[in-house]
């Protein structure tokens, strides 16, 4: 038996992550996301492709969710409540706390504002989450007698994890989204060196090489400071969780250091609430936040004030964090409408904007320009635009570093764009000599798995393995034995020589 890997989502694209892996007969679903770009059936993974799809509870041993982003968790209530899966579901504690917020927010936007057909109700969300088992980092969970899972810190967002799954002698790591460089509020991904048959990794930035984070921070602070020093207003559209906290911490520290008095606002709602979650889940944040939180909680932004609509046209400089991140609507669009026509103002854009959003239009536009908000509203954009290059995803160097560190037998790339994935595949195969695939959606990839066969070994053989014979041109026994003592790994050699041989 081998490992069978069915990619239901995020194959050669970004969105609706969902990979079903069958290891030694056990079927595990990693992530159950929805695609934000589609409103029809394509928004969900094609669950019907799962063998024995009449009874998911029977065919799937467990579901593992890596983090709370909708493209990783969005389809879960649908799958459990509508499709009827009732087996075990695993996610980390913060994900379990935050996922319902995200799902409920999404449902509200879709149903209550846009009046679309309801895919799942609030009740569905609640019932779905009840089935979830929360896990902690590096806590090995025995799902049934064959399956072991273990979560490792992934950075990316609060509570994000990579999952290690072992069935029999075969082992797989599914990374979800991860970040290899620490930022201000989250640490870098951290995992043990494991014996792996397969690593399924994201590849959002498969060909991007990012500069040092210090350079990025310096640039960001420079433009913001310049803008407020010139009396301008800064609009920072962000998602509620993640970048908002990161940038806010950055600005907050800078404000303290430079002793700036310009107010920093958070648009009301989710963000303030999110800060509260961060304060509670302090264990999942970066080392620095953990180290200092005894004296001061890094998420107590004392300069940060909640924003009021009446302040939009108030005189004087200010910095405002507003949702949503891509200026696709909501409060950030409202503020944008007011501030964009003035040259002294500044609007920052996140690193990635979905096509069709205002953010995407601004990315490619040359200032000054005119932007069509809807059929009859058009505004002049004269403000400065700064594109942020902060990203919670690792870059190509990080992916290579992780793959090299884990050195699995096979790599599968998901969650990326096809041409870039092809480049990365080449790189992994040529540089590391590891076989790499990047299947499209609904494609199945089979790779061989590991079996250990028990073999006997005599004591004498083991003894001789423990004291490897060095052969040298000059032999000086006394000196040689000295060195053996000094050589630190003398006794650890046994970890590489196991009383069993590997075979397929």
């Amino acid at each position, binding site marked *: 038996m081998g490992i069978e890997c069915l990619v239901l989502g995020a194959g050669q694209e970004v969105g609706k992550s969902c990979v079903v892996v069958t290891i030694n007969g056990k079927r595990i679903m990693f992530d159950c996301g929805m695609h934000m770009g589609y409103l029809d059936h394509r928004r969900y993974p094609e669950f019907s492709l799962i063998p024995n799809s009449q009874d998911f509870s029977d065919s799937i041993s467990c579901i593992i969710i890596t983090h709370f982003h909708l493209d990783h968790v969005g389809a879960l209530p649908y799958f459990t409540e509508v499709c009827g899966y009732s087996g075990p579901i695993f996610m980390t504690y913060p994900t379990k706390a935050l996922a319902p917020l995200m799902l409920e927010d999404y449902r509200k936007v879709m149903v209550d504002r846009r009046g679309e057909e309801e895919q799942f109700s609030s009740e569905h969300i609640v019932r779905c989450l009840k089935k979830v088992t929360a896990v902690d980092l590096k806590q090995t969970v025995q799902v049934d007698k064959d399956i072991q899972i273990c979560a490792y810190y992934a950075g990316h967002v609060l509570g994000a994890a990579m999952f290690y799954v072992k069935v029999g002698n075969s082992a797989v790591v599914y990374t979800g989204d991860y970040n290899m460089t620490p930022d201000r509020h989250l640490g870098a991904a951290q995992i043990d060196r494991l014996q792996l048959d397969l690593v399924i990794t994201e590849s959002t930035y498969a060909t991007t090489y990012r500069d040092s984070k210090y350079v990025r921070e310096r640039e960001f602070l420079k433009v913001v400071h310049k803008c407020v020093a010139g009396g301008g207003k800064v609009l920072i559209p962000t998602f509620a969780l993640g970048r908002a906290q990161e940038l806010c911490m950055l600005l907050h520290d800078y404000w303290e250091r430079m002793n700036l008095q310009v107010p920093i606002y958070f648009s009301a709602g989710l963000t303030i609430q999110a800060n509260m979650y961060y304060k509670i889940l302090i264990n999942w944040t970066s080392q620095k936040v953990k180290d200092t939180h005894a004296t001061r909680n890094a998420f107590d932004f004392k300069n940060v004030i909640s924003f009021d609509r009446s302040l939009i046209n108030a005189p004087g400089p200010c910095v405002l964090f507003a949702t949503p991140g891509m200026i696709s609507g909501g409060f950030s669009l409202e503020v944008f409408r007011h501030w964009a026509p003035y040259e002294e103002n500044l609007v920052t854009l996140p690193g990635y904007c979905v096509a069709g959003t205002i953010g995407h239009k601004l990315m490619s536009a040359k200032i000054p320009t005119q932007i069509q908000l809807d059929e009859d509203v058009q505004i002049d954009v004269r403000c400065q635009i700064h594109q942020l290059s902060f990203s919670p995803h690792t870059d190509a160097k990080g992916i290579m570093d992780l793959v090299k560190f884990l050195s699995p037998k096979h790599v599968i790339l998901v969650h990326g764009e096809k041409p870039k994935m092809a480049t990365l595949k080449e790189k992994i195969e040529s540089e590391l000599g590891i076989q790499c695939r990047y299947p499209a959606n609904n494609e199945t990839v089979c790779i061989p798995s590991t079996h250990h066969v028990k073999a006997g070994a005599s004591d004498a053989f083991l003894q001789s393995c423990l004291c490897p014979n060095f052969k040298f041109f*000059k032999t000086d026994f006394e000196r040689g034995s000295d060195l053996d003592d000094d050589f630190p790994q003398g006794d650890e050699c046994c970890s590489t020589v196991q009383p069993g041989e590997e075979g397929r």
Partner: protein
Amino acid sequence: MLSNGIVVEDRSLVEGCYFRAVALLFDAENCVRCSAVRAVSQWGQLLVALNPDETKRDWSDALFVQLCLMIRDTDMEIRVTAFNALGKIQTVSEDILLQTLSKKASAATKQKSYPGQYTAKLFKVPATAAAFALVHGLEDEFYQVRKSACHALKMLTVLSAEFSRGVVHILIDMLNDDSMVVRLQALETLHCMAMHDYLKVEESHLDMLLGSLMDNNALIRSAARKTVHLTKLQKLAMFRSCIESLIKNLELYPQDEADIFNVLYKIGREHGKFVINIIKEVSQELEPTFDGHLAMNNVRTAALLVLAISAPMSLEQKICSIPPQIFSYAVTLLDRLSCGLADVMDQNTILAYLSHCSRFTFASASENFEGQALDSHLKDIRLWKKSGEICHLFSESMELKKVTSLLHGNLLDPHVKKASFSEAVLRKMVDLWPLIQLGCMNEVIQTLRSWKEELRNYTCASHRPDGASIFALKYLHVIKLIGKAWACYSSLKNLQFKGMGGLEALLIKTERRLKEMLYRFAGLSREENLHILELMLVTYTLKFSYGGTCCLEYYMNRLNFVLSRVEYLRKEGSLELSDFVIELQNISCEIGNSEDGSINKLCLLQKCLNLFSLKHFVLSRELKYLDAEVDVCGNDFQNPLPFISGLPVGIPVDITLYNISSEIRLWLEITLGESLTQFVFLDLHEFGGLNEMRKFTFVAPFYKTPNVKYFSLKVSIAMECMSESHHFKHRNGPKYELVHLCKGREVHLSMAVK
């Protein structure tokens, strides 16, 4: 771990262990990997050391790249260990160092690979494995790793100037770190770079660096000041913001006052022009208020005064244009100044310096006021110039005095005293050169004389002077000679007349003294050798200046000979040559190549004289002075030795030799009048004794006794300089040039009375 005691010389054994350790870098257990990193580092260094020079660099690079792999480990301790290990590597190629700052594979590293292990299965490490390694470390989540990475950088920036330039940007960012230890280490690394002159602070960085002056941690502030005072600032604006930050530092943390004064003084000394600009702008602030009180409590005023009084000390500033009253204002700060400048001068010196400066400039100022005509104005400028320099000189001798008083005070071992005193003299000497160039010879000679006396006092106090003090004395003498020659030379240049005899005599004397210094000291370091040779070159170049073409060829040969020795020294000791020597090399090459134009090129030679300046060098403690004493017991003109005309006579000479090894070819030189010289070879193996001191009586035969009733001989001891190429014509005598080790002793002989 490898204990330090063992010595392994079997290269294949070391290689075996190294690769074994490398294989374990890929172990599943964290603690194994961590130990493996240490083992790789240790074995790797042994392996590098055991390799021949041509492959050493490659192995060192291989080790570096291999360790770079480990800085992406997910275990924090392994990363710390890896950075510690990286910091221990002695040599790394510049390409690889630069690669550690960039993710993109550079053209230079793309194709390279080294023996080692890249993954569990790949047994070649590409050079690109080092990509971004150091930046990763600086970006790390754990302060332990960041600190270790900063520390590794401190070691590695020394290796390459270009790498240092690249590192500055990111290191400056580290000053922003949350962790105090990281900030401190980053500052120390910057300080180390500044010490090696690799720190180019740009305007954009300055804010961050100066921001550290306001840090609430005293250690950081102190480290930041240490770095700031070493930085050379290009623009007035940068200097101004630097001063403003220091003043702000003082306002916020008055406890740092002494240190801040010190930095202000030193940084002012380095940037004299900027100081004068700034003092001009703020001179109003420094004036007393209406009620006649200086706002001395105002820290800003105090800081600016300190800055102001540093200006005359600046070498770049020839004209001292700080209003003299400022020096008298500064007197009110005397107490605080003496705390701050404790390492530069003592309180009395400061007082003397301040009163001197205020007086001196008053005089020039009044002269300036009177002088309306153009030439008197010019004269003033010269006076100004001199006054600035004299202030400088004044302070220098003050500083020197301080050195002696300090030494007097301490009841140290006399040997240590002497050594440090001669060192102090050599250090101060460097500052005399500008004065010589300006032609202030009287001042120079006075200073030299006082130093000489001081030195003598020390050397006389002890039983036998040590090599270093004698060297210092000789050096003082040579500088005096060169100074005089220089003065002659410049007056020659300006006035186009004056006899040349004086100059020539001076130069011949100088050359002889220099040769003596070269040969009469055992244990001269390469640096010292080079310095003496450089002075010799100056002497020869000066010689060409008066255009005496008669011995041109001889001196040209000498010049080339000395140049070749310099070149040899440089190759052997990887020393850096001064601009003067390099220029001289080029010119002599040109002259050598051209057949006819040698005389035309002579003016080039003279031009390069301006490049010369005295360098500071440290005396090696082991200097030994080769010396000899000769005596003929009981012989004087009333008690002559008997002789019979026409027959050889034996002269019993008591010889004492100091520090002369038996390898040296010694000759007893016996001269009769001006015409007759006879040499007797002294084979030291025959006499036994130690090199430190040998004492023996030697009966020297003198063959050609003249047909007179009475005559006197001169007996002295000379040493053959084997490295001088010059041949001597004496038959059965020395083949090479001689250096005398003692003064001639007169021996009186009279016809034996029957």
